[in-house]
């Protein structure tokens, strides 16, 4: 069967086979995005002593599908003064990085679409392009509110990327590799969850989760949308499916950040205790935990004021990462790394 297909496609077989694998990853991801929206409404509902959506299907389980059909049926309105091509390009550019980054995410030691050596760098490069969708959408809408949202988002994402990048530098110092597979393998050991990066790099773990929340424009850092100040920010002029794509991109990015946090700080597919087998389910459990944190943040914290976001990014998170970079560098040196407790992580 495989050989027959290989013959049929000839020189294009690698591309076709890669496409099949991409679909196998993207389809469940889209399902996860749909049900993450339901989970968000349910979780926030219970946190505010409400029930959340419970009308469509049993326990409201069909709600995401009803939402999707509603958004598909709505008209896409393009404002008269908008730059039509860029207006439609904005949503595309915002979902592209959210999906492309999954190419290098390892689910198990064998299950990874593309095992490249510089996968951590690739992730940083691809996710840094997500801001274009927001900036282009805000500019092409030809609306003051949308433009303000785009400007805020551009400044915010560029600022938090620095702290995020430094957090990742410490991770690659620990594992001596840019390869995500190697990063997980470096956290493997007889002590289980005590050997994961989150203990030696705890400040970086916290910085990464905060910066990840800011990068995905989630509350309390959602000033790019800021309903109470600039209506809905960059996507105020979007309707129907074009709006839905922004929505999908935001949730896909949340899932991506949670996967990266799990892989880099919480041992990816590794089991937390020695007597249970490793596996993909552990990765999903860790991702769910980080996603729950995102929803919890949104239900708990009020939105930051814009200058406070900038202050937090530049004057708190970046200095913390710089200090911890030096601390990790010192702990990795010869006399210290062999000391009884430190040799658990710095081997």
């Amino acid at each position, binding site marked *: 069967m495989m050989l027959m297909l290989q013959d049929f496609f000839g*020189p*294009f077989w*690698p*591309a076709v086979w890669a496409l099949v694998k991409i679909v196998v990853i993207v389809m469940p991801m889209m399902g996860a995005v749909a049900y993450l929206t339901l989970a968000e409404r349910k979780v926030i509902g219970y946190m505010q002593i409400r029930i959340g959506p419970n009308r469509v299907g049993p326990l409201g389980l069909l709600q995401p599908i009803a939402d999707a059909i509603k958004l598909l049926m709505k008209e896409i309105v393009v404002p008269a003064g908008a*730059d039509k091509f*860029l207006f439609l390009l904005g949503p595309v550019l915002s979902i592209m990085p959210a999906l492309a980054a999954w190419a290098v995410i390892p689910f198990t030691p064998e299950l990874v679409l593309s095992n*490249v*050596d*510089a996968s951590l*760098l*690739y992730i*940083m*490069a*691809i996710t*840094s*392009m997500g*801001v*274009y969708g927001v*900036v*282009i959408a805000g*500019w092409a809408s030809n609306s003051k509110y949308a*433009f303000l949202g*785009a*400007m805020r988002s*551009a*400044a915010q*994402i*560029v600022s938090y*990327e620095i702290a995020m990048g430094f957090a990742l530098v410490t991770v690659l110092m620990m594992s001596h*590799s*840019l*390869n995500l597979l190697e990063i997980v393998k470096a956290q493997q050991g007889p002590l289980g969850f005590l050997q994961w990066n989150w203990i030696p790099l705890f400040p970086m773990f916290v910085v990464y989760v905060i910066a990840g929340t800011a990068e995905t424009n989630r509350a309390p850092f959602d000033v790019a949308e800021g309903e109470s100040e600039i209506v809905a920010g960059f996507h105020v002029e979007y309707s129907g499916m074009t709006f839905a794509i922004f929505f999908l991109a935001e949730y896909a990015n949340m899932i991506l950040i949670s996967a990266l946090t799990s892989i880099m700080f919480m041992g990816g597919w590794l089991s937390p205790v020695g007597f249970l087998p490793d596996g993909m389910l552990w990765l999903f459990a860790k991702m769910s935990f980080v996603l729950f944190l995102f929803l919890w943040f949104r239900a708990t914290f009020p939105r930051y004021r814009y*200058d*406070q976001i900038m*202050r937090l990014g530049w004057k708190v998170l970046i200095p913390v990462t710089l200090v911890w970079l030096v601390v990790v560098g010192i702990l990795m040196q010869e006399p210290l790394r062999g000391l009884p407790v430190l040799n658990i992580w710095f081997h």
Partner: protein
Amino acid sequence: MDFTTVIFSAFALTLLGAGMGVILSRNPVHAALFLVLAFFTGAGLWMMLEAEFLAITLVLVYVGAVMVLFLFVVMMLNVDLDRLREGFWQHLPLGAGVALIMVAEMVLVVSSKQFSKLGADLQPASETVSNTRDLGMQLYTHYVYPFELASVILLVAIVAAIALTLRKRKDSKHLDPAQQVLVKASDRLRIVSMRSEGDQ
């Protein structure tokens, strides 16, 4: 024609098209976006040369940070194209002369025998050590002084740029968060005990 040739041609054509777009588009925002596309396809070409570290860093630094700030500025400006075009014919001879000299120089360099020999005696990167690790080893051992020199120059440039633009604004509504946190209820609120109307 094998698959890599198809990919190479696609990247090369896109790069040329994007380059033309940068100089030909009438809208500065479109021009900046074409530049982003040019960087990205350029990175794709580098990736085909197995220079993955350089390719990804190009995307990370230029596409992910520099061009975002560039777009930020370009979008805020209201560029008047008619004013930019003033004196186009007057400056054309000088501009064309400079362009011709540059093209001639490039042709001379690229077509020379030395240029085609360049890199012939270089060792290919070893299979066991990753490209990035190799690059780091070279950069921090053999080339550590040029590297440090370049970083000092960049640092000076950053300090100079900040020093040039730093100014104290009198109407700035700057708040000191440390002071804000230390505020006590008694600083802001005075509770006065007085009889209510019902007691009178």
